């Protein structure tokens, strides 16, 4: 179809477009100010410096932004997965009269976009006096039908004997969940946690609406704030240093979990199909 060299040529072209932004961000983050506006542009900094990171941290409270992002994204994602595990287990294994109706009601929430709840939720936050609090950043973002649905489907696909055996051994549902079901679902739980964390870390809209004090802003909004300040506004080396800093946790997370997820998936394949 397409020979080897053509394949590589087209790939290089594609990847240039896709990877250039990240490359340019790293390169600019280490350039001294004089080099940023140089013509022709330097692809790599001639005199690389770490000074930009310190300057960016002086220009805006990035330590605080990071703390806010870690707390809100971390707790929100842990609670989301925890509640989804409980609900997924209940829907998959427990009997209840109105279960079908409740299940449909939960799945139907996927049809309601965040934007169609924004204004009432904002007024709720105002009335509860939650503006500029972690509670406001966390609680309304916790319940999600997607992880519930995925976990429910996964739990249903688990071998029935697994649950029955636990019952015969006299385990409570709480024990069955944590000692049998969750260990058999590690990869799914890990992927859902990761997905949820990245989404929360990326969030720009909700965090922008429920905070207006600088000290409660999260990293994405902090970046946009730095762009608007005197010190950071036109100093692209500072802005890129800050942007690089904000993306690093995701890079680390993916480097760590990429191997983990592959291992988990292989482990499960071994457990289930014996090869």
């Amino acid at each position: 179809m397409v020979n080897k060299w053509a394949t590589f040529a087209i790939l290089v072209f594609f990847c240039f477009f896709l990877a250039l932004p990240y490359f340019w961000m790293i390169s600019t983050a280490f350039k001294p100010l004089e080099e940023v506006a140089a013509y022709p542009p330097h692809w790599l900094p001639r005199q690389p410096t770490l000074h930009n990171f310190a300057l960016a941290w002086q220009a805006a409270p990035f330590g605080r932004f990071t703390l806010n992002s870690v707390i809100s994204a971390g707790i929100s994602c842990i609670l989301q997965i925890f509640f989804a595990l409980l609900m997924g287990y209940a829907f998959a294994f427990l009997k209840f009269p109105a279960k079908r109706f409740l299940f449909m009601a939960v799945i139907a929430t996927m049809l309601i976009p965040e934007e169609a709840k924004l204004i009432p939720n904002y007024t709720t936050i105002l009335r509860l006096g939650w503006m500029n609090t972690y509670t406001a950043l966390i609680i309304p973002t916790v319940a999600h039908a997607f992880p519930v649905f995925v976990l429910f489907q996964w739990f249903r696909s688990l071998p029935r004997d697994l649950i029955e055996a636990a019952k015969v051994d006299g385990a409570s549902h709480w024990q069955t969940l944590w000692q049998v079901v969750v260990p058999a679902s590690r990869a799914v739980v890990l992927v859902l946690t990761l997905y949820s964390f990245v989404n929360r870390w990326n969030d720009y809209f909700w965090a922008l609406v429920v905070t207006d004090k600088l000290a409660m802003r999260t990293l994405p909004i902090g970046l946009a704030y730095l762009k608007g300040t005197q010190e950071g506004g036109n100093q692209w080396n500072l802005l890129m240093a800050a942007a690089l800093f904000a993306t690093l946790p995701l890079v680390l997370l993916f480097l760590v979990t990429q191997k983990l997820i592959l291992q988990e998936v292989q482990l499960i394949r071994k457990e289930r199909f014996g090869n």
Partner: protein
Amino acid sequence: MIEQSAAVHLSHPISALPSKKFPEWLTFLLWCAPNLLLFLVFTYYPFFFNIYISLTKWNFLNPAPIFVGVENYLRLFQDSDFWRVLLNTLVYAFCTVFIAQTLAFVLALLLNRPYRGMTFFRLLVFTPQVTIGAAAALIWILLLDPQQGPLSILYHWLEIPGLRWLANSNTALWAIILVGIWRECSFSAIFFWAGLQNLSSEVLDAARVDGASSWVLLYRIILPLMTPMIFFLMVSGLIQAVKVFDLVAIMSEGGPVYPASATFVYHLYKLAFRDFQAGSASALAIIFFVLIFGLTLVQLKSSQRWVHHG
């Protein structure tokens, strides 16, 4: 299966007491309670309350919204900003999804070829996914700058004056679309590649043995097998794309002359939190909900005709 369940060992087997005391329905309720409560307070209540606010005039501050019927909707339909924003959003969504996914499919086919070095290319393709939206918006402002950044080399070489994409009402939206394509292309390429990896090699080998050329293989076997995934990515891609907010908020704020590059959600934000028109913004939110709902239905309907089930 049997050996497996026998291998399951509980560290603290306990007597059947708790399950006797604790009826199953109560466990069900308790375990569903946190999520159900949150869905009630932060999803169902706001959704219906939003419908009510959209029928009122309110600025968040007055003690109570004043009921005005469908006036907000009528005003929106007569407002040229509304139509411009709707058009912008649809142009953004369809351009990013169709261009990005076509490119992504070609990219995935290439990444799936059995040559050395593909891991490196996959890593490069993945970089947009670890770049958070706000950072991406900043990087692209720099990249599109006609004086600094790699584009200046191109302009110089072509001997044309640098185009200031974001400062021109005709091009600002296209600059944002470019960033959207960049983001979506990377995302879909990874998914398509994973899908291609899952295709059964037996089917492909059988077709090859039967003498199918690689183009025939692509059209007759790979594409039909991939349609469920293409469909899934199209639906979710379009729904994601019409929600674009961060890129617009950071790159152009809907400008340079509002609403040249404003999208639906940015307009919603502006109406609610800049103009404090909670009623109009809520009406916009309801229209947005209908738009997303409609998109999902259209996609589901059309998919029945061409998605290969099997």
